[in-house]
């Protein structure tokens, strides 16, 4: 009797040794899929302000704190109330849920892997907008000019970046919420580049925006809401303008040409009922 039960135990252990790893693996795959679904449900539940994780801890922390400052400003002043701030890794994360990606370009940037390149190209072609901020690179003197920054160039290798032009004075980004003549961040922006030409499927929203304002640093706040970085040359007016640019940027990414079209409404109404 004892012998028989012992045999049973041995057999059971052997079976367990054979089947457990595959069972575990399957379980962990299911857990991973569920986690991915949970993340997707969370990310698609509303607007998240998203930045690209560069791997430079200081830079990433500035991005997070900057977007948090912008989130609070949006919630305070507009009906757009972002759910929060998310750092994304294009090598790993689905980008479909985000209309706008804030991407600080550090002094050194590793080139993108194929998965990230493909995700980013899909993101661009399906209506998303990336804002490259070369402010940090410019400030540290590693970049040679704004858009010609070597770091930016190596970063964007293989991305389908449309032709760009300096922002025209009547661009909808300059009137999406506030009226803006310049787009400063922690430092004045020397030039802001937007997509040249108008892709009809994008409602006038530029796929790529490039500037060197170091905006996240100007927006960044600590837990008490106090700004973390001084703006150069300085003054609360410049910080206010940086926030206004941030608000315009988000509203622009969400509403496209809305403000530009609004000037036509009286003409359309005029035609109605005639």
């Amino acid at each position: 009797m004892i012998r028989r039960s012992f045999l049973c135990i041995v057999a059971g252990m052997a079976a367990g040794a054979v089947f457990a790893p595959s069972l575990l693996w399957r379980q962990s795959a299911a857990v991973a899929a569920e986690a991915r679904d949970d993340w997707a449900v969370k990310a698609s539940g509303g607007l998240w302000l998203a930045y690209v994780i560069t791997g430079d801890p200081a830079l990433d922390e500035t991005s997070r704190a900057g977007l948090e400052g912008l989130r609070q400003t949006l919630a305070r002043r507009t009906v757009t109330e972002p759910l929060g701030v998310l750092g994304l890794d294009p090598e790993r994360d689905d980008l479909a849920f985000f209309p706008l990606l804030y991407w600080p370009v550090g002094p050194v940037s590793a080139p993108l892997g194929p998965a990230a390149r493909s995700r980013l190209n899909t993101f661009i072609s399906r209506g998303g907008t990336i804002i490259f901020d070369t402010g940090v690179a410019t400030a540290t003197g590693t970049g040679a000019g704004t858009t010609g920054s070597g770091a930016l160039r190596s970063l964007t290798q293989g991305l389908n970046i449309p032709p760009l032009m300096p922002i025209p004075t009547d661009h909808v980004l300059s009137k999406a919420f506030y009226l803006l003549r310049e787009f400063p961040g922690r430092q004045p922006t020397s030039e802001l580049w937007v997509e040249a030409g108008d892709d009809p499927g994008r409602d006038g929203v530029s796929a790529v925006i490039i500037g060197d304002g170091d905006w996240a640093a100007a927006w960044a706040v600590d837990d008490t809401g106090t700004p973390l970085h001084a703006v150069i040359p300085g003054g609360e007016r410049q910080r206010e303008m940086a926030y206004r640019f941030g608000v315009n940027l988000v509203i622009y990414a969400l509403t496209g040409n809305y403000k530009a079209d609004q000037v036509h409404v009286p003409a359309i109404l005029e035609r109605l009922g005639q």
Partner: protein
Amino acid sequence: MTSVPEVDSLTLAFAPHLPGPVAAICLIAAGLALVALAWATVSAGRFQPPRGGLWRLGGLALFGLALAQPSLIRERREPVKDVVAVVVDRSPSQSLGERTLRTDQALAGLRERAARFADLELRVVEVGGPGGGPQGGPQGGSAEGLGETRLFQAAERALADVPRRRVAGTVLITDGQVHDVPADMAVAARLGPVHALLTGTHDEADRRLTVVQAPSFGLLGKPVIVTVLIDDLPVAQAETVPLVLRRAGQSPLTFHVPRGRAFRLDLQLDHPGQNVFELEAAAAPRELTLANNRAVVVVNAVRDRLRVLLVSGEPHNGGRTWRNLLKSDPSVDLVHFTILRSIEKLDATPTRELSLIAFPIRELFETKLGEFDLIVFDRFRRRAILPTAYLNNIVRHVQRGGALLEVSGPDYHEPLSLFHSPLGELLPAEPLGPTFHHPFRPQVTAVGRRHPVTAGLAGPDPAHPVAWGRWLHQNDVGARRGVVAMTGLNERPLLILDRLGKGRVAQLTSDQVWLWSRGFEGGGPHAELLRRLAHWLLKEPELEENDLRVKVDGRRLLIERRSLEPETKPVTWTTPAGVTSSIMLAESGEGSAQALVTAAEPGVHRFSDGERTALAVVDAINPPEWADVRTTAERLAPLVAASGGAVVWLVDAAAQPGGGLDLRRVAPGRAAAGFGWLGLRANGDYVVSGQSETPLLPPWLATGLLLGMLFAGWRREGK
């Protein structure tokens, strides 16, 4: 063939051994010799031929004759039958009064008389009969030919394989309303003597309604001008004529139209697509037919511009999907209204630094609201900014025939939801609880597969639908009305399509369609789905889900019934002449059942399955066939005269003693008509079936004679 007598003929033929020029030189030489001989005779003063000279001359002549090789050719000839084409007009106007009877009698008479001539072949062609085209066969049925009587085309075709020297003539049995009388009289030569036998009577009178001018397209909601003319042929029977105007779904209107003068009607186009107006002039005391008292005007109504009002509750991830959809359609005038800031928000920015464009809210939601064809509420929550009075305006507008699309945000079950506003009474989705936050794959329901908005989107196989990207949030709702075309999580309605009186309401109970446009998990058919949804709401006729329609392609009519439930009801087909038949439709999947029929008659064909009615208008609005149905000799007379034939009224012929027409064969070039008879050319053509040749001067005979003559000449000389 065997009864035809054979005829022989004899011919003298020559087959000279010498080639032509050599023979000619020989002949000239012989002629010169004779002349020299004659000259010698004359100069000598007396005729003194050389001895034996005549014999030698005779021998020479014989030699020449032998070289020419005369023979006698005997031909065996068989005469060939001449052909007469008898073209019988079976067009609808030929069915009036006694015309059919007279036509049949005349045809029988012709057959009987023609049978008496062994060398005459009768080819009878019937034109424009039921089920047949101008050539009596379906292959001849060109679309423009329907409604016209084309007898000459048929006659030429009937005689196409007959050489002209065998054509005996052409007989037309018709009412004279022939629409292809050739202007070129050379045709008369090809058809032989053309005789026209007219089937009507001399004193016919008729009233007709003509559409003088009618546009084929017009703007929806705007009147189109249609001009009609009513006249009495040949003389007036009334001064004003009541004209009844009928259209689907409306009570008939009567106008009093002065006879003989163009009359203008202003017709309102009240739905997109085909608007069919039926006009009918009252019958006159004397009428040949009522078919030409009726006319149909079909005007396609198109929209000038589609006006869409998009009301977004807040800027959100999916907002641009709706803007892209509506802005990509060049015929849409989009007015987008969204709320960017609300009064509870704090913003110390001076007004001049804000991008503010005054939005004409009162104009939009009160004075001009009725002009919008579609109003879209995208994630809208009740905020103070839209007063209740404006929402009430929208409710009234939709109930009167407007369209509303509601795309619910995640707070549909909350107190600020539109469901709890005056607009709630329009909305078919009823909140059951908080929003689900869980992935799900949108599914097209069984009824959705039959609805034009969603039919075919999920692929042909219901068991294995196309795998679309998942959506991640959905409101927990139940449908209290309408058609649930798509479902989401837990079989909850995802897309509901509803009708309210003349208005339409659709509800999408999730705001996640943007996940498809952003390509999450490969995306889905958002562009097609939203386009169809918008166009269904805008009452695009192509997207009607419960409809009987007929597509007219020439004479082929494709009957299609779209229904959400499979139906087996037959469709009753009523032709313009009032003949009804029952048609079964074959289910072709995806909500459509079809049948193809061929119309034999121009005019309005009516299809009905008891519940739905569709009209198909075949051929021109004024078919030439019915324009004038009085029997006339005028159209045919010039050609008949040119061909040497005769125009005969059958009523006159029947009144004569003997009662009928005789047929006679006449020689080519002789008069082909006379009192009481029709002449058909007797060409006397034949084929040669055999030939025999008898040489008249065989070589042995010629040699013998020649030698004999030379010998006689030598003997004579020697004496």
